[in-house]
């Protein structure tokens, strides 16, 4: 049975349809990339799975996770899943952390919600988690406020929060778009390792084809709220069926060729 099954999902803002009749499934341990341009509905889809849609949005259809229909749950029931069975990493590492709260306490939050740990025990766990996401001097880091950390460090904190309870599904929404390329490389490497260690499934949302194809096995190409193509990475590159996927791949290939023209020999 699939871990996650999305069927005929439609999301509307008022009369505007932003996600249109979306269906896909994700097995346990599978890594799915969702690629698309801005406004294609990829972020909204991931928020819908987490039950974090804005109040103004309405979702119909079905999202089944571990056999449970999520769309019928209320906020309280849904919160048992969030941060526990599924975790999410967001795009903006700066604004995604509470500026007035020490990061240790923010990492401890999911543990306190779902593991019934005391504040002290959860903070001790937070230090371990900092260590796991490769932050130096974790004892000091947990006492820092977000503004005292760099972008890469903040995104590692985001990852620590999302993975604190070893979720079955990790959703990463453009997790490296706001980062410098050198930092992006490190964070992607880390995410790759952690997801492999945890054995969790991954939904990786991005507009960047090279990044998505490096992180995932299957890719769903989204355009104006619809999945236009959903296949394995190699199939997509060998045999893109949709016009839009073809264009994406051609552009990415051309850009890479241009770059390689200069940078042959480096890797």
């Amino acid at each position, binding site marked *: 049975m699939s871990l996650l099954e999305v069927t005929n999902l439609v999301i509307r803002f008022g009369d505007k349809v932003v996600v249109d009749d979306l269906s896909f499934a994700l097995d346990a341990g599978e890594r799915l990339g969702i690629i698309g341009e801005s406004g294609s509905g990829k972020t909204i889809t991931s928020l819908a799975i987490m039950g974090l849609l804005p109040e103004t949005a309405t979702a119909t259809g079905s999202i089944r996770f571990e056999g449970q229909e999520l769309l019928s749950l209320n906020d309280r029931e849904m*919160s048992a899943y*969030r*941060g526990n069975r599924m975790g999410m990493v967001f795009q903006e590492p700066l604004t*995604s*952390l509470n500026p007035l709260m020490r990061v240790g306490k923010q990492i401890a*939050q999911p543990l306190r*919600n779902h593991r019934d740990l005391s504040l002290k025990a959860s903070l001790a766990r937070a230090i371990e988690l900092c260590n796991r996401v490769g932050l130096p001097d974790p004892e000091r880091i947990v006492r820092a406020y977000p503004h005292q950390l760099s972008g890469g460090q903040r995104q590692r904190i985001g990852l620590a*929060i999302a993975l604190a309870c070893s979720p079955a599904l990790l959703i990463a929404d453009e997790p490296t778009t706001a980062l410098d390329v050198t930092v992006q490389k490190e964070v992607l490497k880390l995410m790759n390792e952690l997801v492999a260690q945890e054995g969790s499934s991954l939904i990786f949302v991005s507009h960047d084809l090279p990044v998505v194809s490096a992180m995932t096995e299957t890719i769903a190409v989204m355009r104006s709220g619809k999945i236009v193509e959903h296949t394995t990475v190699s199939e997509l590159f060998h045999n893109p069926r949709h016009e839009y996927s073809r264009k994406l791949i051609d552009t990415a290939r051309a850009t890479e060729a241009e770059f390689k023209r200069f940078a042959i020999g480096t890797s």
Partner: protein
Amino acid sequence: MFLLLRLLPGDLAIAKLGIDATPESIVQLQQEFGLDRPIITQFFSWFGHALRGDMGVSMLTGVDIADEIINKAKVTLPLIAFASVLALSFAIPLGMYAALHFRRWDGISTSVVSQLGIAVPTFWVGVILVTIFAVIFQIFPSGGFPDVGWSAWASCLKSLTLPAITLALGQGAMLMRFARSATIDVIQQDYFRTARATGLTRGQALRIHGVRNALIPVVSVLGMQIATLIVGAIIVESVFALPGIGQMLLQDVGINDYTKVQGTVAATTAAVFFVSFLIDVTLNALNPKTRQRQ
């Protein structure tokens, strides 16, 4: 006090007040009392004295102005404090509630309810409250203040209750609006979403992450509202015939007691700046970004 005022924009305040308002009154004084020292000298001499807490004596009644102000403040300050506490205690929970039920409450209802609170003139609220609680039910006195002062604290509180409620309603409506919009702002922040993604419900996330973040703008608004509170106090004192600073000020204006008006206004303005400075300092202390830098 002198040093403090020097450090604050407050010293400018009084200087400005001197330029704006006092020279004219000093001109008047010169005509009445035949003083012919240059205005600037006069101002600085008054200013110098005022900073040492010496406002001089009233030109008409000969009372020491500083003493008189302190005396009257015993009514006005408790009134303002009482009203602020009342206003905060209903405005913040209500504002947050309205924000959390943003969609259901949204649009016309919230707007009208809070706007109504702002639109109703303070004196009218006072009059209505007097009609209901003093005239019809006779629970509270309709006005006045015990002559013996705070030694009869129970009856003092009793006579301050209606005025404080009057003052708190208007201020609270304003604060509620800010509390609501500050909360809505927090709800739309990315970190609020992160907090919910850790498994908090909206209500829990608001309690843990929202209150402090929303409180900062609300308290800073309260700081800016000190001025409005004082105006409100003047009006309320007049409605309820409370012997406070406002009442005194109105009487002094009526009898053209310029030195006293000048002293009272200066003292009030200084108080406003002092309180806003205190609130500023408090807010900076609450914000880790301004508190410590790496």
